């Protein structure tokens, strides 16, 4: 059953977080990759995460095979983290509007990494284009900030 993203997390998802994307193949072998930007649908029931096509082959093959996806959003400066799990609805090539979202994401992410001590000259080289947009519906949201509460399912109200 799809659920909406808690409203408080919308800004978080769109705010230059470190984004990790997990998928798996038919043999239940996992794949890890980085997302390069994300956005939330107006009704908060769907998320879009962007992938750098140069390093997305396995992830896209997995999505094509079974559509299972887990995406973790983490704020670099304080490790506040949560994970969203769901089912992919569709994959498309990113357009001009998507590129704008991704550019904003990279600018904010570079600043986050800078605060954590990574020079901007390095983090700005993170390739985000050309990209694909992966849209998925949300089935579960988990608190993932490191600690004993990590992995707890968040209660989602309406």
């Amino acid at each position, binding site marked *: 059953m799809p659920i909406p993203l808690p409203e408080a997390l919308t800004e978080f998802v769109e705010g230059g977080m470190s984004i990790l994307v997990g998928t798996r193949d038919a043999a239940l072998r996992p794949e*890890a990759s980085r997302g390069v930007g994300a956005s939330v649908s107006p009704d908060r029931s769907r998320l879009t995460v962007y992938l750098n096509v*140069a390093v997305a082959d396995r992830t896209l093959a997995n999505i094509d095979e079974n559509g299972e996806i887990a*995406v973790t959003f983490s704020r670099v400066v304080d490790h506040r983290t949560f994970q969203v799990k769901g089912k992919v609805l569709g994959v498309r090539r990113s357009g001009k509007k998507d590129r704008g979202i991704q550019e904003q994401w990279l600018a904010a992410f570079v600043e986050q990494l800078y605060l*954590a*001590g990574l020079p901007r000259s*390095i983090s700005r080289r993170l390739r985000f284009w050309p990209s694909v947009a992966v849209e998925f519906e949300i089935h579960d949201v988990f608190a993932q900030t490191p600690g*004993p509460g990590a992995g707890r399912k968040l209660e989602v109200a309406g």
Partner: protein
Amino acid sequence: MSSFDELPPRCFQGVIPAAIATVSRDGTPNITYLSQLFRLENGRAALSCQFFNKTKQNVFENPYATVELWDPVSFDAYRLELRYLHSETAGPLFDQMAMRIQAIASHTGMKGVFRLISADVYEVLACEKREGFLEPAGELGPPEPLDDQLPRTELRGLQLVTQRTCRAQTLDDLLTTLLESLKDAFGFRHSMVLMPDESGERLFTVASRGYGDEGVGAEIAIGDGLLGTVASRKQLLCISSIEGELRYGRAVRASVQATRTRRELTPEIPLPGLPDAQSQLAIPLVAGERLVGVLAVESRSALEFDEWHEAFLQIVGNQAAVAIENVLLRERSEGDDAPESHAVPIPEDDAPPSRIPRRFRFFRNDDCVFVDDEYLIRNVPGRILWKLLREHLETGRTEFSNRELRLDAALGLPAIRDNLESRLVLLRKRLEQKCPELRLFSTARGHFHFEARCPLRLEEAGG
């Protein structure tokens, strides 16, 4: 497979947390951050397990994991395919990982809450670089190459450190020389040596370099924080990206507080040293089985100390421990003879004595000495100072011996293996900083000169 062994060591220092993806038996993927990935021999890797989490549950059900690892200098990404083998809850690997976690935990006031449950060992099935992860360096140029001249330079440095420290006559000389040579030979500009106090439960800073005046005399309990942990475990600890790891520790602390776990959290211990240190290396100085002290080096760069430095500084640490033991033995054995003449001439002081009196107050209850309402020193060195001040004022004496201090039961020096020399070094440095009119210096091994170049006012408070 060989490429895993060839990844730069800095990729395993946790500067940028790695990502790990796993899959449950029913096919749901999970992806999260790893606090630390260790590279082992024979194509294996180990992950630290601090909490029984989804990753752990998944690998019990389905042993495959994929890790994405980032090089913190070039930002290149590497993809590792892993297969879970087993968990270790004792042994050298577990101890090494546990020590690191304990240091971070006690540093963030979470001793006992945040601890290693197991070291989880994985086989590395594949390792590849993610081509196309980054844009070409372009006009920014490639990242600075690592200095491949390091080993040769450092061997020369070791020679310098050894030569200089061997010549030192007193503990004071030795410590100053050691820290100076570390700077000259290796560019370590922020360093300190801590030694155990009389109780053996605390360390105090006896020498420091690169921290201004404030370093000497600072204390830390053995077992607490990074330096205290190194002292209690007698194992070297190198932490890169201190901020990153402490941030991780604090995130756990915040989440522990949020979930109101069973125990109260102790207050966070402030990190001694640079407020913006990015990496710290602490080396236990051990002679035989005995902890002589801790040598700590800090840097504002997250990647200052790579694996080579660790192995190497361990050698420096061994040298330093032996040198300290030797100089102490010499100071003690020769201190019993009365000096025929001053082996070390009393330094000339051209400045005329001050006519402004300085007021010393000894607070017996708190065991500490204040000078003109400013804290000066406490415990054993405080009592020594009080004894010297009183005798100097009452009898005009200026020559003292370590031996008579040892025999004075009121000072409370331990009967066996006392640390009088390190306490005198601390006292001399505190006087130099807070009250330069009092001059204390060694005249021969085991003998020292003490004089006041100002009128003295002494008061005792608190019974």
